[in-house]
């Protein structure tokens, strides 16, 4: 928990500071445009995994909204 919060705080702080070294120019996005670099790029894998974990564990979600789930939990 502590590690997650510290890491998250650092990220948010870096983002909110508007540091000019963050980010890239449009012509520097070749790697970022790849599917495996897109958040949600493995959508079906995530959906199938999330359904498995939803039915077996007490926690779910976080990445996006669930909804339309099952009556299994």
């Amino acid at each position, binding site marked *: 928990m502590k590690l997650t919060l510290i890491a998250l705080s650092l990220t948010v702080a870096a983002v909110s500071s508007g540091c000019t070294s963050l980010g890239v120019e449009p012509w520097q996005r*070749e*790697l970022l445009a790849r599917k495996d*670099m897109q958040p949600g790029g493995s959508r*079906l*894998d995530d959906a199938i995994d999330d359904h498995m974990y939803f039915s077996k564990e007490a926690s779910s*979600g*976080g990445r996006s*909204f669930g*909804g*339309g789930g099952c009556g299994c939990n």
Partner: protein
Amino acid sequence: MQLEPTIGNLRSKLIAASCALLGGAPVARAETHDVVDTINRALTDWQLDAALAYYHENGRIQAVEPVINAEHDLADGGQLDFDFTFDALSGSSPNGALTSRQVQTFASPSAKSFAQARHMYTVSSGNLPVDPNYSDARVAGGASWTLPLSRLTRARLGGKFSYEDDFYSATVSVGLERDLNDKNTTVSFSVNSENDFLQPIGGAPTPLSDYTQFEKGGHETKHGVGVLAGVTQVMSRNWITLANVSVDRFSGYLNDPYKIVSVIDAVGSPFGYVYENRPDSRTRRSVYWENRVGWSQGSVTADARYMTDSWGIHSETAQVHLRWWLPGRDQYLEPSARWYRQNAADFFRPWLADTAAVPSDVSSDFRLAAFDALTYGLKYGCKLTDHLGRFGRELSEFNIRLEYYEQSLRGNPAGPPASSGLDLYPKLQAFLLQIGFSY
């Protein structure tokens, strides 16, 4: 924009042949080309993903789940997204009772009394009580529409539904996204509302009622509202990070209508059973953080989540995927690992003593216990053909994925004296096999 000549020709021939077959009569060459062009143009703006998953637990549930997702780019910069899922489940499901040295007899949920022999099942000494006749089917679908409000702002409207014999669910969501900092930063905010209707087989049992009295009512409902705020930041030309904070609250009937709790006598034998009861509201808060780092031959995705709720549960999750392209870049391997830990809900009790008063909230559902879970996975993917897709020239992909999941109770809650030596909390082991195709 130039089509790949070989693939384009092959594709045109295939589509033309299909059209001719479907038409059942010769089609004029010009008309065929019109159809081919139309289909080609239409497919260019679609991203299709389909998968078939098989899930199997040791001695418990198995499921077959076909899933399909389609995304369509609109001319105005918007996007439509559709998904459809079907689940067929069967096998044995734990009913919540404690393993005993005695043979235990139970009634299936549809039974009206213990006199209906065809609705009965027995569990032999030393085995986890499971209902061996569990079977269910689920149909679920969803759609979302992303529409640009300005060059930098988008709205997203979505809806989902899920249907089972004993459960219906409908969810709607509304969200806003805005790009900042030369599109290196995206902030988002969304709200969703879920309404569920439960019609348990045999009726919803009266909470904490004696299992042998079959006190059951009709249907129940529950309602949930959630908000999620996120920020996505491009950190460098090969690193992107995402952080979400979410809160949701569910209220209404939150029990599992098929779960009971063993009441144990002074000797340590099952004295009886009562239906579980959970609090009628639950508020959850979570923080999620994801990082993707890429290079020419691969990428790493690492994410972590912390979640806490008003039932006293808090959980931690960490997950990592490593995608590694093999020489030639037309095949990849993706090993993955996930670690999950949760503590028990405040009202989790694996069993009750007949000498003590029954608590107002109690459940023996292992999913509310303290446990650790590990997942190991390996995915293999290979590129099939070139086509023009949403990100320019893309490749169709075939992939196959295998995962192993293991869940172990932590701390081994004490059992009754007579159960000494029995495996009261057997480890859950499951594997998942998934075959997928992307276009």
